[in-house]
């Protein structure tokens, strides 16, 4: 900790939050909120005179709220930086602290939060984790029985710098407990709360047990566990050491804790798996090893950073094996438990790894980004003719469209992230996206629907989420109908209405319109644009009296392989439930209507060529297939 | 030739329905009078109490006593007729179990008087009138019977030989009992006569409930349209059939109304209302514990429903007046 404060290249900003992140790799603009401390950092010498005169006491979060702090405080004596701050929610403005500070004049009640903007090349996100609140698990009586505490609370009670100066006492009567139990997996590996393993609790409880046993070899300690997981180097040996010290390990997940109303002693009800018998033992004090859970503000941070979350709420890495430190957004990296529960060695390792990944960029003067950007055909843009439009500019999540009446819109390439929202939104088809042109997409669709199109389900998926979801369905072997034919674009915002109409004109049995969940969108608001369009299409098809389910909208994250498979199977069921003639009849009935809506389409540059090509392609496919 | 058996009929606190049942025997009454003498029947003929007082003890062979014991006159006559009769039969629900008058045990006498003489909507004004046992009139002192605080069954004031339930007992059963009595074929003393052993449910032919059925809300009969072929409980309507002695011939059920329980508890049931509460509670849907109280609240007036005819005879009533 102290090293970090001493390192001259590190600009330490405590009591500061990240408000906004804009830009792209190498060129992020980050807005930081430096929260008002009401203490001038340069003048505060950390003497603490202010705090000792402060009359207000409130629970100290740092001590898990089991000990108080003043309204003007540092969380602990070894705080880095050692600068006091005033909690204005608690302060009664008696100004005793101002008096105590005297000539230093470090206290400034007029301070306000300050927003500062920084230019940043790469970002390492290391926001950590939070602790599961076990009071929702009635069976363990936390919050009801005073001597049931969490292990984090025990950390403070057993810490020489903690509120009891390291004297472990039990809350009901301040006596030193002689018989203790730890319960592992409280709220973790538990489908009711958090499905995952919290990774470090086994070692963590062993560590605490060993510490207590070292301080007082007479204490009787039992660790209740489901499995002891000690996979890293030296861990198993540490577990051995604990057993040699006489710490009891009982395999069995306790189902109930009860309390003696007179002594406040506790009884743990558990099965001893080794014995196959129910056991009930009495303890002075019980420590719950609670699950590691994502930070309460992880959802918010995920929108600020534009990164997705895995099930369970942790940040989702680009690839779990190949790129575990990378976010899907170039230039943003993850370190530590924010990406999933980790112990200290793993967190340190990932911190260094993330630094190394970020270093690749930060040591370069320039960085390459994908050229899949939008491009305007100036001659097709009506703005050049003096008409007002600007829909492209409105759609762009990045402000990358230079739009003004009287001149053709222009895309600022460096700002464009390549979502394709403007392309699909342009009513005059004056914009295209490199590598995802209308011609390319149409040619692909024609090929996919060459044969028996009414049996096919054409699935449009965004690259970042639903395509990933489809991948996960495959890697997990969640089977779904082989009639699915997948199309990939970068964002649901690129899924032009014309593509959908064209699919039905070609006779597709069903069409899936899928992308990410709104909060996960890789392109900030791209999904919202796509979702709005999808909803509009849905209304139109409803009015055309298309059988419900032949057009389906589904938001599927890269982590929802099961959902992808389920949605496709449900769509197949819709088709299966329609007699073939009825389906074919409906497709024919709707063809004129969807064709009518495609009127601008053939004029788009490249589309006619794609159409002509596709005719040969379709012929080739059908001949080939009939031969087979 | 033996002397003809002597019959007596008396009504205490009752509506008179039981008396009407006897008249409903019609021409069969003439047959009765061929073989028996009716020596006392104030509802039909002019008899004075003194006529009874002047009889020898046990002079009457069968006394059919209907009505509950509500006042001192009822009780006095109960004792008198007991003394003068060989066999005393509690005739009808009121003398058997207190009947409808027995529901007055939910209140004390003062609150009843207050209702009758002060707050009844049909009163023009309250004059604070109360019945007075003895009052001086120009003609001399006149007496009224004393109203009791508790409505009692006949058996609670004197020894009863047989109980004949019903509100009123149905005519066919009365005829059967007359015949049995006159032929000397009555069962052992203390028995319930003129009724069956099992319950109304046993003889009811309505379709019984389906497996898995539970009641979420109870209805009173007028609140819903009743299926004439389905068990009332299965329609969420409280029916006293499960605990009530059969023998009535099911006039209520045939009229698409649930059993009201007038034939009293079936053999083996000690407390009709408590046992019915137990049966009814067991059919309540308990899936949603929060909603239980709402379901229970839909049973309007449990005491009046479960103990409609037997409150005076109930254990809770006896506990109250102990």
């Amino acid at each position, binding site marked *: 900790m102290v090293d970090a404060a001493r390192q001259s290249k590190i600009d330490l900003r405590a009591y500061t939050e990240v408000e906004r992140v804009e830009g792209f790799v190498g060129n992020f603009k980050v807005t930081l909120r430096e929260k008002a401390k009401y203490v001038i950092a340069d003048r505060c010498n950390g003497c603490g005179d202010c705090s000792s005169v402060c009359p207000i006491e409130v629970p100290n979060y740092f001590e898990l709220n089991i000990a108080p702090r003043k309204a003007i405080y540092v969380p602990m004596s070894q705080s880095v930086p050692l600068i006091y701050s005033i909690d204005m929610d608690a302060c009664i403005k008696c100004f005793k602290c101002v008096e105590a500070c005297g000539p230093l004049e470090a206290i400034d009640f007029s301070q306000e939060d300050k927003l500062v903007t920084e230019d940043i090349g790469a970002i390492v996100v290391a926001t950590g984790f939070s602790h599961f609140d076990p009071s929702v698990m009635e069976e363990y009586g936390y919050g009801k029985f005073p001597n049931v505490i969490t292990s984090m609370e025990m950390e403070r009670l057993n810490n020489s710098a903690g509120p009891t100066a390291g004297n472990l006492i039990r809350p009901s009567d301040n006596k030193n407990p002689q018989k203790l139990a730890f319960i592992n997996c409280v709220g973790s590996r538990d489908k009711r709360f958090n499905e995952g393993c919290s990774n470090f609790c086994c070692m963590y409880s062993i560590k605490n047990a060993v510490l207590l046993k070292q301080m007082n070899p007479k204490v009787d300690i039992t660790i209740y566990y489901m499995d002891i997981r000690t996979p890293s180097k030296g861990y198993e040996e540490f577990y051995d050491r604990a057993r040699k010290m006489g710490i009891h390990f009982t395999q069995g997940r306790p189902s109930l804790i009860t309390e003696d*109303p007179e002594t406040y002693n506790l009884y743990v*009800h558990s099965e001893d798996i080794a014995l196959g018998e129910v056991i009930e033992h009495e303890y002075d004090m019980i420590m719950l090893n609670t699950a590691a859970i994502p930070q309460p503000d992880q959802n918010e941070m995920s929108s600020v950073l534009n990164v997705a979350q895995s099930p369970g709420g942790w940040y989702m890495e680009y690839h779990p094996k190949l790129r575990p430190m990378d976010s899907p957004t170039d230039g943003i990296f993850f370190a530590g438990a924010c990406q999933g529960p980790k112990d200290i060695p793993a967190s340190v390792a990932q911190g260094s790894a993330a630094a190394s990944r970020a270093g690749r960029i930060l040591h370069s003067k320039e960085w390459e980004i994908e050229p899949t950007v939008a491009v305007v055909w100036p001659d097709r843009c009506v703005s050049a003719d003096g008409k007002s439009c600007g829909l492209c500019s409105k759609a762009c999540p990045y402000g990358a469209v230079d739009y003004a009446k009287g001149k053709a819109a222009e895309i600022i390439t460096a700002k464009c992230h390549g979502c394709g929202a403007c392309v699909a939104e342009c009513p005059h088809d004056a914009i295209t996206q490199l590598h995802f042109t209308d011609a390319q997409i149409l040619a692909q669709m024609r090929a996919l629907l060459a044969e028996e199109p009414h049996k096919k389900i054409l699935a449009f998926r965004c690259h970042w989420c639903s395509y990933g979801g489809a991948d996960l369905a495959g890697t997990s072997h969640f089977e779904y109908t082989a009639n699915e034919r997948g199309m990939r674009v970068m964002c649901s915002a690129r899924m032009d209405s014309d593509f959908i109409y064209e699919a039905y004109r070609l006779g597709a049995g069903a069409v899936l319109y899928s992308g990410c969940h709104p909060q996960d969108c890789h392109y900030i608001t791209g999904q919202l644009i796509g979702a709005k369009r999808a909803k509009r299409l849905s209304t139109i098809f409803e009015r055309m009296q298309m059988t419900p389910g032949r057009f389906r909208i589904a938001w599927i994250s890269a982590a929802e392989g099961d959902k992808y498979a389920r949605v496709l199977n449900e769509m197949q069921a819709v088709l299966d439930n329609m007699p073939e003639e009825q389906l074919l009849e409906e497709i024919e009935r709707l063809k004129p209507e969807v064709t009518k809506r495609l009127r601008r389409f053939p004029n788009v540059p490249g589309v006619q060529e794609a159409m002509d090509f596709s005719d040969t392609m379709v012929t080739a496919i059908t001949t080939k297939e009939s031969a087979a | 030739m033996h002397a003809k058996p002597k019959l007596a009929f008396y009504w205490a606190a009752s509506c008179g329905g039981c008396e009407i049942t006897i008249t409903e025997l019609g021409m069969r009454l003439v047959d009765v009078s061929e073989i028996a003498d009716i020596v006392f029947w104030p509802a039909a003929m002019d008899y004075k109490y003194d006529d009874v007082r002047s009889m020898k003890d046990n002079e009457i062979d069968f006394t059919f006593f209907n009505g509950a014991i509500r006042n001192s006159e009822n009780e006095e006559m109960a004792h008198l007729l007991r003394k003068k009769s060989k066999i005393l039969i509690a005739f009808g629900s009121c003398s058997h179990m207190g009947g409808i008058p027995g529901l007055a045990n939910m209140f004390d006498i003062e609150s009843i008087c207050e209702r009758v003489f002060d707050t009844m909507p049909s009163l023009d004004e309250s004059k604070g009138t109360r019945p007075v046992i003895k009052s001086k009139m120009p003609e001399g002192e006149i007496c009224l019977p004393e109203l009791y605080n508790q409505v009692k069954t006949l058996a609670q004031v004197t020894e009863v030989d047989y109980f004949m339930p019903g509100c009123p007992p149905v005519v066919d059963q009365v005829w059967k009992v007359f015949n049995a009595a006159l032929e000397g074929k009555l069962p052992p003393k203390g028995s319930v006569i003129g009724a069956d052993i099992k319950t109304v449910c046993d003889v009811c032919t309505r379709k019984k409930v389906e497996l898995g059925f539970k009641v979420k809300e109870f209805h009173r009969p007028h609140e819903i349209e009743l299926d004439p072929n389905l068990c009332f409980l299965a329609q969420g309507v409280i029916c006293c059939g499960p605990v009530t002695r059969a023998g009535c011939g099911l006039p209520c059920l045939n009229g698409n109304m649930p059993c009201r329980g007038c034939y009293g508890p079936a053999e083996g049931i000690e407390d009709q209302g408590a046992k019915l509460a137990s049966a009814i*509670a067991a*059919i309540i849907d308990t899936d949603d514990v929060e909603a239980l109280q709402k379901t229970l609240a839909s049973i309007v007036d449990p005491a009046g429903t479960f103990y409609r005819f037997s409150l005076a005879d109930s254990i809770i009533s006896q506990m109250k007046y102990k």
Partner: protein
Amino acid sequence: MSHENTIETFADQVKAIPGGEHLEMCYSCGTCVSKCMIQQKLEPEYNPRRLLRMVMMDMRKEAFESPTTWYCSQCDLCYPACPQEIHISAVIAAVKQLAVEAGYSTPLSTVSVDESLCAGCGICVMACPYEAPHLIQKEVDGVMDLFSEVDENRCMSCGICVAACPLGAISRKGVSNKEIIKQIKVKKQKSIPSLVIFICDWCLREDDDLSILESYPANVRVIHIPCSGRIDPQMALLALRAGIDGVLVCGCRPGECHYQHGTDITTCKMSLLDTMIDQIKLRDHRVKFVQIGTQERGRIRQEIDSMLETLNARKEPH
């Protein structure tokens, strides 16, 4: 295709029965075993975790013969406690179904119906949490009549039907009406109130609490019943009529009843009785129903003491 011909394993069979699907999610943590009270109170061999294991290991015979298959009363205390969200009782029910199909039958002593008393009213059919009784048509003396018949393999012996049956036509050895009434005997002493406690076999989890029950003198009579649902208001009133000063009925907290809804049915019964007692304005609080939760160690003492206090106060003015 190859997998069409595969031999169906025991686990496959269990999983094919609704409720059995999640069998293989079990990671043997033992929560269900200690959450359940059967092992400690009734049958030491009882162990759902091991039954699930037997199914997974294709140990058909052992599973069919295991007491776990037969003793589970589907109270579902374990279901909300299971970290893998396995509906354990449903899995056990699936095993039991297969066991019955294979010709096994319950070792429990179950209820029986006396047809000479049964009126075929169907109250037991509605009351039973397990759908054990059902009505059958039967010819008696040349007349078709309805009777209740109990499927012994469904019956869990809770006695709820015994209490519900208006005519006492259903009984179970040990807890028939007669046997219970026989126990309502207290040595009456003038100055000390007498109390009868009907206590369900499951609401007191701890041995400590059970010993509290035994710590009272002879004026407090404890009658053990399988479920508070076994007691009906008439039984309580009969005790009072027999001269007992007070009746305390103890059952489990809602949601913790060993027989699913027994305690809730008792709530209904007792609440109806309370209302009726209230209606006749008899406010002497001599009958009380309490529901004790698994974590309420020592509460039984409080409840008995407070009941005795109430009864004492009632005695004093006289």
